[in-house]
């Protein structure tokens, strides 16, 4: 099982949870497990043609998956996946 960190703006679509435990051998598997359990998340993470949105960054542990094998990156038991969308607040 890997743990997926859900950022604050998306928690409302994930049953208000901060982390979700999922099974999956790759980042893509883990994320599809996540959106299968929480379908409302899908449109926030994926475009209509099923691609991960450009403003949503996905990290495996502390590394950006864009610099690993992207969504094909292998996931081990105990790994942490973080979804890090951009936020802009400051005032």
């Amino acid at each position, binding site marked *: 099982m890997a743990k997926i960190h859900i950022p*604050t*703006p998306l928690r409302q679509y994930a049953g208000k949870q*901060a982390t979700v435990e999922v099974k999956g051998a790759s980042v893509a598997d883990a994320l599809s497990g996540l959106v299968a359990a929480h379908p409302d998340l899908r449109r926030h993470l994926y475009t209509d043609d099923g691609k991960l949105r450009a403003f949503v960054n996905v990290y495996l542990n502390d590394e*950006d998956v864009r610099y690993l094998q992207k969504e094909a990156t292998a996931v081990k038991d105990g790994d942490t996946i*973080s979804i890090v969308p*951009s936020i*802009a607040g*400051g*005032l």
Partner: protein
Amino acid sequence: MATTFDVKPETATLTNDEILRYSRHLIMPEVGMAGQQKLKAARVLCIGAGGLGSPLTLYLAAAGVGTLGIVDFDVVDFTNLQRQIIHSTADVGRKKLDSAAEKLKAINPFINLKTFETRLTSENALELFRDFDIVADGTDNFPTRYLVNDACVLTGKPNVYGSIFRFEGQASVFATEEGPCYRCLYPEPPPPGLVPSCAEGGVLGILPGLVGVMQATEVIKLILGQGEPLIGRLLLIDALGMKFRELKLRKNPDCPACGTHPTVTKLIDYNEFCGIRGEEKPVETGIPEMQVEELKRRLDAGDDLYVLDVREPHEYQICNIGGHLIPLGDLPKRVNELDSSREIVAHCRSGVRSAKAVGFLQQAGFKKVHNLAGGILAWADRVDPKMPKY
């Protein structure tokens, strides 16, 4: 660490009054006389005198940053006071710049304060940034975030970044020579409306304090050339869990701003880049509106109107006009609770969410739906002055 820029401390000698004032810095080996002179010689530009800008400018002024610039065009209002600690109750209605300048001068009369009463734009950013060594970004929207980043890359100034949402924050140092920029992390902005702002989503009052102080810390470290700056690292702050996590950031060789073949060679239209036209997000066209006075008159006359409140339950608790509560996000699955033969007036806080609700209902075949223009805020302003505003 590699110094990211050079200040000329030899030109900044300290008077005896300043030596006394900065004594707790001067007796630390990491600062000392040389460091304090670097601080005095440094020129830091803060974008925004709001939530992040408050602690940021207060601490930079206290620490003795010699030239402190602030860009802001806003006026203090009551909803700012929960977190923008540089402003006090008596300042409501004043320009934020005037209010901030007064506090900063009171803390440290030795600093040179430069205020710029303007919105940061593609036309003025490069000119403004030129006279400073470091830029600290305390703005609150995506277009300005990208504008600050690109202007920092183009002028070669480090961008000390912080952003907040509810009880979560991010901090990093972008656009140094060796490190990534904001576009390396987020090449594209989210579509408008998908990521709520603090004004829409709320923010825990202490959070800008926490993140703004982190930005101030990074600014001071960059000036001193001490420690490990947040270059190439994104710090994630979760105030609710009080957990701090760190992610690695890389300089993207294909980055349009700071990559090996940059395509961003001048500042662009950032509202267009972020998909926003005009200042305010316009209410969708083709949405029939009703004014609050008309709603009041027709309710008083006993007309058969169905008032639909599309806010969240915790907002309903603050104030309501007795509408049937279905939060906008729940509307698709609860639409069967509504009777399409009745005349429906949808409202939210200010009219943006309810315009979306009306658009959705129209597509679902509802013919007699109106959006209450200005939302419950307009109702409080023009119909029921006793109603609290938030």
